[in-house]
Structures are given as C-alpha cells and as structure tokens.
C-alpha cells in the first residue's frame, strides 16, 4: 500500500474544502431560485469520498453516490462541469438529460453513473470488476452505498456475487445514521453494519468516516487486496449526515444533540487542525485556499449560467447507441 506523503495531505484537505464550498454554493443558488433542487449534501461526509478515491490508481473505476462529490473532484471533474450539471446545461456530463450528481466520465474512471434507484449501481460496479477479472487486468472497482441502501436485495446480491467470484472490488457503506427520516435502528438489527461482511465471507472493516487519513489507509489496503486477487472488502465508514436528506428537507427529526456531537468531529476542521500541528497549514495558507476556491466557484457558476440548454430536438437523441430513430417503438 502507498502511504500518503505529507505533501499530498494538503490536496486531501483542499478537495474536502472544495466539496463543501461547492455544495454550499449550490444550496445558495437553490434558495435564490437559480437551480432546481436535486442537491443532496455530503456535508460531514467529505472525508469518505475524498479519502477513498485518493486510494485508487488512475485506471481504476469508481461508482459514486449522490453525496460523493469528493470522488468527482479527486477524479478531475472540473467545478465548471459540476455547476453545468447542477444547472442541467448542454455542456454538462449528461448534456442536460439528467441532473444532480449523476455525473459520469469513463475516461477519468467515473465509470458507473448513479441513476437514483438505490443501490442500482452496486451490482453494475460488480460487473465492472468482473470485466477486469475476465480480461486479467490488475484494476479495481470501488463503489459506495448508504446504510439505507444496505437493506435492498441489490446490495446483498451484488456483494455476495463479488465475494463468491473474488472480484476486485471495494464496497464502502457510508453509515451516516439516517436514510431520509429512518434511523439505522429501523434499518437493520445489527449493532454494527460491518458485521454483515462475515456473512458474505469477506473481510469487513469499520472505519471512522470523519478521519480522512483513516479512510484513505483502510481503502488503500482493501484496494491492494483486491488488486492482489484476494477479492472484495466491505468497509463501513461511520459518519453523520449533517444536513437534511435533500435541500428541501429541514430534518427536524434529527436530534440537535446528535448534530452538536458530530459537529465536534467535523472532518475538515479535524484534518485542518492535524495539518496545523504538522506545520503544513497556517492561517495565511488557509485564507489563500479559501480565496482560490471561491474564485474557482464564481468562475464556474458564471460559466454554467452562460451555458446553453440542450436544443429541444435533442430530446430524442442518444436513446440507442446505434442511433436508431425513435419516434416510434
């Protein structure tokens, strides 16, 4: 496993900060009526998508969820692309035909697009890993799913198949304590979801999802196992959804005390403090980072708002790869 060099620590920090700032901006745009919803905040979970995606090699594949903006940033999806996507513009990843964080970019390894149904992309990511194995490529797939999505047949079938075939894949369950208003106590009877790994016959590791270095290291070990032919790993990243389910959910069902307790464990502040202790960050550098990020975001929003929508006649294109006209069945 590659250990991160301290020099790289700073980029982890910057990507977590970018993720948070982008989501804050997207939320603000929503309240100003400049974008329509479909904003699912990963606030408080930044360490998971950022830390784990850093553990991948350039030609590995990743299938993020809707709170995994960090994955896109680490994979090099630009902030302009992200705002074009939020705003449903023609020059976004899916050309305005879908929205939210349903971004894919196969050439940058964001191979499996989130399609909304949960966790529909998990078995598909398993298929990506299967193809790697069939072609004897030493490549790995990484996918994420929620504590809520863990209750679906798709997650059980996908993980079991990957386990049986020892496929090169890493499953990260982001246990953020909530699935919409449903608490984990109503989702599963286990105390720790990670115990399920034993039932699949694969290693299960619980990690502090608010500790970006721990997430990175745990994922890197799992990726190394997968690449080495030892099959999948089930990682439970324990964290907290700090906002409502979506921008429209005030989440009054979440006890304030719970939010207060988790606020103390904020992954960005925590890692920032660590960097300061290591003399890798100080106030002036931090301010510099803030300035760069807001300039990057301002540019992206202006660019996205000036970008065109897809022309109406394009509604019927791309239905088939063979380009068959589709006015009739």
């Amino acid at each position, binding site marked *: 496993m590659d250990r991160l060099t301290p020099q790289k620590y700073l980029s982890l920090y910057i990507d977590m900060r970018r993720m948070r700032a982008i989501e804050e901006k997207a939320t603000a745009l929503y309240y100003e009526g400049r974008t*329509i919803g*479909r904003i699912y905040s990963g606030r408080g979970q930044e360490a998971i998508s950022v830390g784990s995606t850093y553990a991948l090699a350039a030609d590995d594949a990743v299938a993020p969820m809707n709170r995994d903006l960090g994955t896109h940033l680490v994979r090099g999806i630009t902030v302009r692309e992200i705002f074009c996507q939020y705003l*449903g513009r023609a020059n976004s990843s899916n050309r*305005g*035909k*879908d*929205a*939210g964080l*349903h971004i894919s970019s196969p050439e940058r390894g964001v191979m499996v697009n989130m*399609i*909304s*149904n*949960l966790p529909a992309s998990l078995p598909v990511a398993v298929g990506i890993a299967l193809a790697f194995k069939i072609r004897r490529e030493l490549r790995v797939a990484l996918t994420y799913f929620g504590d*809520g*999505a863990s*209750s*679906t*047949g798709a997650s059980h079938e996908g993980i079991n198949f990957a386990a049986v075939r020892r496929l090169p894949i890493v499953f990260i369950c982001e246990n953020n304590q909530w*699935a*919409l*208003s*449903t608490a984990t106590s*109503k*989702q*599963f009877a286990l105390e720790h979801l990670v115990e399920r790994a034993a039932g699949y016959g694969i290693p299960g590791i619980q990690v502090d999802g608010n500790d970006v270095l721990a997430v990175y290291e745990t994922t890197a070990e799992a990726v190394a196992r997968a690449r080495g032919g030892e099959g999948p790993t089930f990682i439970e990243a324990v964290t907290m959804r700090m906002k409502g389910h979506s921008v429209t959910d005030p989440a009054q*069902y979440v006890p304030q005390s719970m939010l207060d307790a988790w606020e103390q464990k904020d992954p960005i502040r925590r890692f920032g403090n660590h960097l300061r202790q290591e003399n890798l960050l100080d106030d002036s550098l931090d301010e510099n980072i803030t300035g760069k990020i807001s300039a990057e975001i301002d540019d992206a929003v202006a660019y996205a708002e000036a970008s065109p*929508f*897809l022309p*109406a006649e*394009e*509604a*019927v294109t791309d*239905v088939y790869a063979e380009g068959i006209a*589709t*006015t*009739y*069945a």
Partner: protein
Amino acid sequence: MARITLRQAISDALREEMQRDENVFIMGEEVGVWGGTYAVTRGFHDEFGDKRVRDTPISEMVIGGAAAGAAMNGLRPVAEFMTINFAMLALDQIVNHAAKVHYMFGGQMKAPVVYRAPGGGGRQLGATHSHTPDVIFAHFPGLTVVSPGTPYDAKGLLKSAIRSDDPVLFIEHATLYQLRGEVPEEDYTVPIGVSEVKREGSDVTIISYAQGLQVSLEAAEQLAKEGVEAEVVDLRSLRPLDMGPALESFKKTFRAVVVEEGHRGYGIGAEIVARLQEEAFDYIDAPIKRVAQDETPLPYSQELEQMALINPDKVIAAVKEIV
C-alpha cells in the same frame, strides 16, 4: 360538498377505511413520522400509532411481498411505494405472487392487498424517476389496476380497492395531488372496472385517464371555443377495462383520440384502438389517433421534458387531423 385536493381525498379515504376496519394498516418507506413521500399519510402515525402505520427499510421486495403475505393472512394492507418507479423493483412479488395466488392455488387463497404508487413525469425528476409504467402492470391478469383523474374518483376508487378481495395497484399521478374537486362528506365508493363520460360532446371521442384526463378536458374546452365538441371518456380502471362508454361514444362520433402519459409504443392507446376496431369496426370514419409520450427516456431539462410529454395542444392537433 367540499372542494378538496386529490391528495386530501386519498388521505381521507385511507383514514376512513382505517377507522372502519381495524385490519387495514399502512406500510412503506417513510410513511410514518415523515408522512409519506407526497405527504398523503401525514398525521397518520400520531393518529393510528406504530402498529398500523409501519415504516419499512429500503426494501421494495419486502413491501411488495410482505404486504401480499399479510393480506393472505387476513389483514388489509395498504402498501405504499415511494414512487411507481420503485414498484418495478417489486414486480415479481406483485405480478407473480399477489396477482397469481388465487388462480394458481385453485381459489383457496386471496391476497386483498392495495399497492399505492405515485408516478408520472413532468416534474424534472429525470429518466429513472419519471416513469408512467401503468401498462406494464396492467398487462397481467389477476392484478387490478386503477388510476383516478379526479379527487372524487380517487376517494371512491381507493375505498373500493381496500374493500376488494383482489390485489389492486392504485396509481396516483403526482402532478394531480393539488387538483381540487368536489367530494361528498358521506361514505361512498366508485366501482372498479367502470369507465365514465366526464364531458359530453358529439364530434369526437377522447379516451383517457388520470393526468391524461385533465389534459383531455382542457383540450376539449379549447376545442369547444372553435366549435368542436369533444366527448371525454375516463377509463379510471385499466384492468379490468370497461370499454362500454368508450364504444358507445365512438358509435356516436365515429372518431377517437386516445390520450395517455406513457410511451406510445405498446401502450394503453394500442389496446384501446385495437378494441375499438374489433368491436366497432363499422363505425370508423377516420384514423384513430394516439397522443402519448415520445419514445425516449424522459430528459431532465425542462423544455425537453415538456416536449416529450403530452399536453392539450398535442391533443387538439390530433383531433383536428380527424374532424
């Protein structure tokens, strides 16, 4: 009579049936404290408690299957899918279990379950969350499929569905929740499998249901200003399908347009047109038209989505081609 929304009408039907019959209970994702994806069961958890308003994990197969099982074991579950798009995950439980046990086991067992499923396009929810897959479910004998287009019918049909001994898929078009209409205070039902003329006219017959009904009624009003009187028939139930009023109307107007929100290919319109030509061939004076969703997954972008969906202008254009 009070003018209430379709959402309220469905809510009222549920509440009144739960008060009438203690075997009626609700299960589904976020139906409890949250009050349902479209707030239909808001307040129910407080009123009826955990025992009768049961949240499930994110497990559509369990919603489909366990509701069928509880129904086979004497209860009257009303299972809610957050949206009909997720009901497709439970297709096997619905069509192979709920809809078949009575037949396969010689009538010994019945599964009087109601599946409620909001659906439809037009809300910029993207391709996977905007389906109108009514026809998929309506294809299977053994399953009853209803989809109301007015608050009155919504309340009456849901009561019939809950009291029915057969499994019923109750499809609610999400854009109709705010639609208001007159609904009596007293208990009433609307029979399943009975179509109804919603507007009288003599020049052309428009056959539709659910959101398509409202689109058709709007088109009919505009056509009237141009001197074309359309008769609008509301199917209300897709299975069993009552062709009576549609045939009667067609035999008077000799012209018909079928309006549905789902895709045109292999759609409701295909079925209705086939039935019209089978049962009223001698009355056909013009091609029977279909107005339906374009043959593409629904795009997110507003303009593109609206272009792919049905609207009154498309219905008017179809009518004008044949009158």
